[in-house]
């Protein structure tokens, strides 16, 4: 009840700010590079360096077949980043295509995460080196003689990273211009000025930006499933003898969408708490995002169940061993954690209106979803990398559960911190809230008295 009342109050708050208010407020925060910011950057950089240490330890042990299991957690971390951080621009692209008005404050947060695509491409290279040859085992490359899978995976992941950066830069041009116009003359401003490319906001430029943002967003939406398919095929499916899961590419894409929504909620919550962005990330954004989060959580179960039931009734020797490995025995605990955090938890929590219609509720569920996503990647990828001989037809023997060693923990913490660090750094080059999109939205919204309450009237711009 209290939450509902709070949400109501937030919705009727008026008068609405002007474009100038938003520009000054956002640029004021953007300009600030205080101790708090540098403190966070230092902590994240230190944690990232710890991850590099973990990586170097693994590197010193080499890539020989008998050491492949050492790379399981590294690959699981890579898959986790692809499932959460790198998936976030999909949210912005989808909501912009759908012309959702409430998206405006959060699109830039999701687009800034596209920068993590660079880390993904870097991490991909050792992960590919750790893969066994495709000769003599099942893979989507069908023993394709030319550069498979390394070259084509790099091109696929590189394309996604390129599209993400193009989307990020292109859509940020007007805000880079705003920073160019209003920041004091420092080396940072000169970089921003160069990045703004001389944007002035003419009719032609706005028209092209609009079309370009939709095109780049659509391309990101089209390329993300490709990258997830390559990831799960090369690093999971192709390494587990007896695994024949026709829907697993779709499963990991849906998991990626869930992870993206979950991490967006967590990021917005942290920005409210640590960056005082309450007025941009209000109940409206959390409430609106909680609905697709609930839908994706139901889909998480649907896809998992659809795969499971096929194996359960198939019961061929290879299938029985696989189901024991990743569902019933060695990685049962990981599945249970993921099951609770990615399905049961969101279902039980988000069916309640007061939880959905709050800031803390969706953020808490989102945190669980992100943790569940990490555990699920461990289940999928660590198990696959533990298999001694991927060229068998039936998994024999089943590898034991592989728990993380110290270098693995360092890699997980370091890679996640690296993503957060990249986000922090890019957020001081590109404002983390889109001034122009909010400015545009403000002109399309009027708060009107309607009988005994207030209502927000939103014009359709096209």
């Amino acid at each position, binding site marked *: 009840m209290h939450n509902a009342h709070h949400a109501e109050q937030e919705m009727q708050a008026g008068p609405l700010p*002007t*474009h*100038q208010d938003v*520009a*000054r407020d956002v640029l004021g925060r953007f300009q600030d590079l205080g101790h708090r910011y540098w403190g966070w950057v230092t902590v994240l950089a230190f944690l990232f360096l710890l991850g590099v240490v973990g990586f170097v330890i693994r590197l010193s042990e080499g890539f020989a077949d008998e050491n492949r299991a050492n790379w399981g957690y590294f690959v699981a971390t890579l898959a986790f980043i692809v499932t959460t951080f790198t998936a976030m621009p999909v949210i912005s692209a989808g909501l912009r295509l759908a012309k959702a008005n409430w998206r405006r404050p959060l699109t830039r947060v999701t687009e800034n995460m596209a920068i993590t695509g660079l880390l993904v491409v870097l991490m991909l290279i050792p992960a590919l080196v750790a893969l066994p040859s495709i000769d003599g085992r099942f893979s*989507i*490359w*069908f*023993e*394709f*003689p*030319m550069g*498979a899978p390394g070259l*084509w995976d790099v*091109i*696929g992941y*590189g*394309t996604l990273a*390129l*599209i993400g950066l*193009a989307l990020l830069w*292109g859509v940020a*041009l*007007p805000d880079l*211009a*705003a920073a160019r*116009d*209003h920041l004091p003359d420092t080396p940072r401003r000169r970089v921003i000025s160069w990045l703004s*490319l*001389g*944007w*002035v*906001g*003419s*009719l*032609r*430029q*706005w*028209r*092209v*930006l*609009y*079309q*370009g943002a939709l*095109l*780049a967003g659509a*391309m990101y939406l*089209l*390329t993300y499933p*490709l990258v997830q398919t*390559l990831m799960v095929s090369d690093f999971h499916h192709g390494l587990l003898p007896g695994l024949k899961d026709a829907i697993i590419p779709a499963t990991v894409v849906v998991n990626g969408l869930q992870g993206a929504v979950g991490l967006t909620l967590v990021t917005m919550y942290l920005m409210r708490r640590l960056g005082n962005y309450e007025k941009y990330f209000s109940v409206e954004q959390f409430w609106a995002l909680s609905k697709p989060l609930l839908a994706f959580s139901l889909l998480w179960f649907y896809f998992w169940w659809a795969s499971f039931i096929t194996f359960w009734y198939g019961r061929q020797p290879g299938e029985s061993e696989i189901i024991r490995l990743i569902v019933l025995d060695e990685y049962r605990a990981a599945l249970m954690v993921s099951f609770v955090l990615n399905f049961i938890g969101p279902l039980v929590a988000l069916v309640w209106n007061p939880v959905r219609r709050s800031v803390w509720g969706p953020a808490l569920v989102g945190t669980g979803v992100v943790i569940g996503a990490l555990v699920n990647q461990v289940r999928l990828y660590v198990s696959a990398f533990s298999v001694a001989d991927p060229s068998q037809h039936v998994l024999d023997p089943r590898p034991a559960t592989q728990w993380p060693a110290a270098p693995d923990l360092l890699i997980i913490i370091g890679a996640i911190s690296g993503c957060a660090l990249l986000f922090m750094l890019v957020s001081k080059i590109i404002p983390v809230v889109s*001034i*122009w*999109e909010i*400015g*545009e939205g403000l*002109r399309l919204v009027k708060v009107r008295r309607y009988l005994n309450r207030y209502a927000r009237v939103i014009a359709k*711009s*096209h």
Partner: protein
Amino acid sequence: MANTKLMGLFQEPEQVASAMTQLKDDGFPAEDLDVYSGSPFPEGSFGEHEPETRLYMFPLVGALVGFAIGLLWTAGTQISYPLVTGGKPLLSIPPMTIIMYENTMLGAIIFTVLGVLFESRLPRRKLGLYDERITEGYIGVIVDCPEDRAAKAESLLTGAGAEEIKRDEG
């Protein structure tokens, strides 16, 4: 006669709409008028001339080029260096599809970036007639007109409520 450029700086969109109407009524061609703003307005809000762009052609051409490269790269090399494995067909279609798709998307995004730069007339080394307040919500109406019509344009802009008139010094 040489042309000159003027910019009237407005705070309210209603004033801009009024200025644009008056300028057009007075014979200033719509193609010679432009509007600079810090955020986009729905097309036609000011009764402005809508610039034609062909951005959609760029990703289309890029995708076709990328697809063609992917096809030539995969099919061409397999045909040039035939390695028949177990009597299976020479061309391995499923992996070719992945590679062609990747190349299609890569070509599309590269051409889209080039298209955005070309169609936006970016990068610009100099901003020209511009005011920094535009990125704070002000709106600039640009009039490109012969020198002898500049005074008329200025009076119309001022009459519509322009806070300041700037002239292109360059």
